[in-house]
């Protein structure tokens, strides 16, 4: 009871405070400037964002994983009938992933929902301690996003399954390991989008990968068959 009263009090104080700053008319609406928030993307409209992801790998993977930010370019292309195409290129030089897939989006007042299915190709190459290692993988990401927007800010919760179609790792001429289709786990992400400068929008996200095969650390996959939580902090600027 006490907690509820406190909440009402805080809400009251907030409302009171906001009343002292009468909002002027402003035409900006975050919706069309977002990329993660589900909405009806402008037909034939093209958006690009560029950003970085900082990853905290689990200790099992620390020994040989490359600790550097993942660089990312994300693209959306609006299509008719609430459809759009999304594509994403992520790289850490020795590991690269290109993924793309369609989305179907709906917007109901402040709430948005979109679903899609991405196909991804991973390619990596690492010459380390005389090992000329490389990998190729095909993956699929069925995904769904739920969004809620305010006038100048949008929040999106995105969940996706990660299905590995094939992972093949080579060392020189030898195929060290090959795995066929398996459910690799899933990811859960939370994104916040809002203006940074003029009407340019910045995306800040937190993502938890709960997977066995985390593609940036492909060099270690062949001997680890367990799920790891791998968090990412994502910051991207919509250009």
């Amino acid at each position, binding site marked *: 009871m006490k907690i509820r009263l406190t909440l009402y009090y805080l809400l009251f104080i907030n409302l009171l405070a906001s009343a002292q700053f009468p909002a002027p008319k402003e035409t900006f609406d975050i919706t069309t400037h977002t990329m993660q928030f589900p909405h009806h993307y402008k037909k034939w409209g093209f958006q690009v964002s560029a950003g970085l992801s900082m990853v*905290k790998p*689990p*200790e*099992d993977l*620390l*020994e040989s994983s490359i600790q550097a930010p993942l660089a990312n370019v994300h693209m959306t292309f609006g299509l008719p009938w609430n459809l759009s195409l999304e594509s994403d290129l992520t790289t850490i030089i020795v590991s690269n992933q290109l993924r793309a897939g369609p989305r179907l989006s709906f917007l109901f007042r402040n709430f948005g929902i979109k679903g899609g299915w991405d196909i991804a190709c991973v390619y990596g190459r690492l010459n380390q301690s*005389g*090992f000329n290692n490389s990998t190729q993988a095909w993956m699929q990401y069925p995904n769904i996003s739920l969004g*809620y927007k305010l006038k100048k800010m949008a*929040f999106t*919760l995105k969940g996706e399954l990660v299905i590995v179609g094939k992972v093949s790792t080579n*060392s*020189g*001429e*030898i195929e*060290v*390991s090959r795995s066929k289709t398996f459910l690799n786990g899933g990811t*859960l992400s*939370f994104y916040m989008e809002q203006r940074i400068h003029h009407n340019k929008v910045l995306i800040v996200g*937190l*993502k*938890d990968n709960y997977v066995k095969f985390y593609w940036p650390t492909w060099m270690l996959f*062949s*001997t*680890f*068959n*367990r799920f*790891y*939580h*791998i*968090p990412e902090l994502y910051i991207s600027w919509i250009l």
Partner: protein
Amino acid sequence: MKIRNLHVIVLLMLIIGCNKESLVPVPSSGINSFPEGTLPVPSISKPPMEGIYLATTDATIFGDTMILKWNHSGILFTCKNGKHFIMNAGYLDSVILIQGYWRDGYSDATGLCNMSISGPEGGNDILTGKPSANIILRGAYGANSEAPDQSIMLQYIRPFSQKVKSNNFYILGHRAGGRNSDRLPVSENSIAMVKFTERLGTTGIEVDPRISSDGVAFIYHDPDINTRLTQKGLLAGDVSAYTWLQLSSFVKLIHGERIPSLEEVLTFAIDSTELRFVYMDMKSAEAVPVVIPIQQRAIQHAKDKGRDIIILMGIPGTDVLNALMSSLDYRNVPSLCELTVDDVRMVNSKVWAPRWTLGIQNDLVQQMHNEGRLAVCWTIDSPNWIRNYLDQGIFDGLVTNFPYVVAYHHYIQE
């Protein structure tokens, strides 16, 4: 309200991300819980038990066949798919009791297991040291620390082949026998691991010598002190910058053991195990002049104890090669060279150790054999490739993180 929930999720993600990966629990109640009056299995009873067994009940998760192999401390059952049983045995009257736990080397699955061999089903023969073709093990296995509730029955098929018995093949455990990332109950590169590793099927070990700032050789894999290898403590940074007293006082390995000196490891391997091969994978060229006299003392100690054990200085790169060649009488330093066969000949290494991804290389291995040298390759972990190298290669040993898989494919050979 929804937004508040999102915030909670975000915070939870952060917390989860910061958590240390949990260790696979070793179900301890399975070991040393024999009934009162149980006696150790006599030595004459061990060879008749060893061999190939057929899993004849519903224990399909372990595959069709298993290998039973005694080791210094107990019994290893190993399966084709990386699952293995670490068991102790004793006998009571005419019944042989076997208890312990199973693990999947490639995941975190584990559980308790108990089995027995009754007198009429082989126990009587085994206890008198007679071979028996009708050994049947009956028992149950479970998941995690729960009481075993799934039945398992193993039927003896055959002993190890003559090829296996006559082949002096080395199964070399990486990092003194096993890696931390495989979530073993003891730390990599520790005395406890040297003691434990035979239970995984190894007959030799690879260790990683470095030297402290005051010239003491110790074994430790990484160049820095980190929480992957050690309990979080007061020291950080370059491990070789510290004195031996500082390292032994302030650092504990992940399961609480001290960092061992190289001399301690070699002495323990000689005195307290049946290991037959120690491969010192030199982590720094500066350690070479320090390690040579330690190696000489250990070889002499093994000779004095009548132990059949090879102790070799590993040469992983040209820096160590040059450091070795700058020492007097380097051709008489027993060494293992990871470089070319020409380098092997130049320093007169006893063993050539190419990395496994260079291929089976039977022609070069045969050349080494013709010159009276051995050849082992490192570090091979994939079950398919292990089988391939054992079937088609002529190496004298393999370095691996999964010795029970190598053991399975080695001992099952006909």
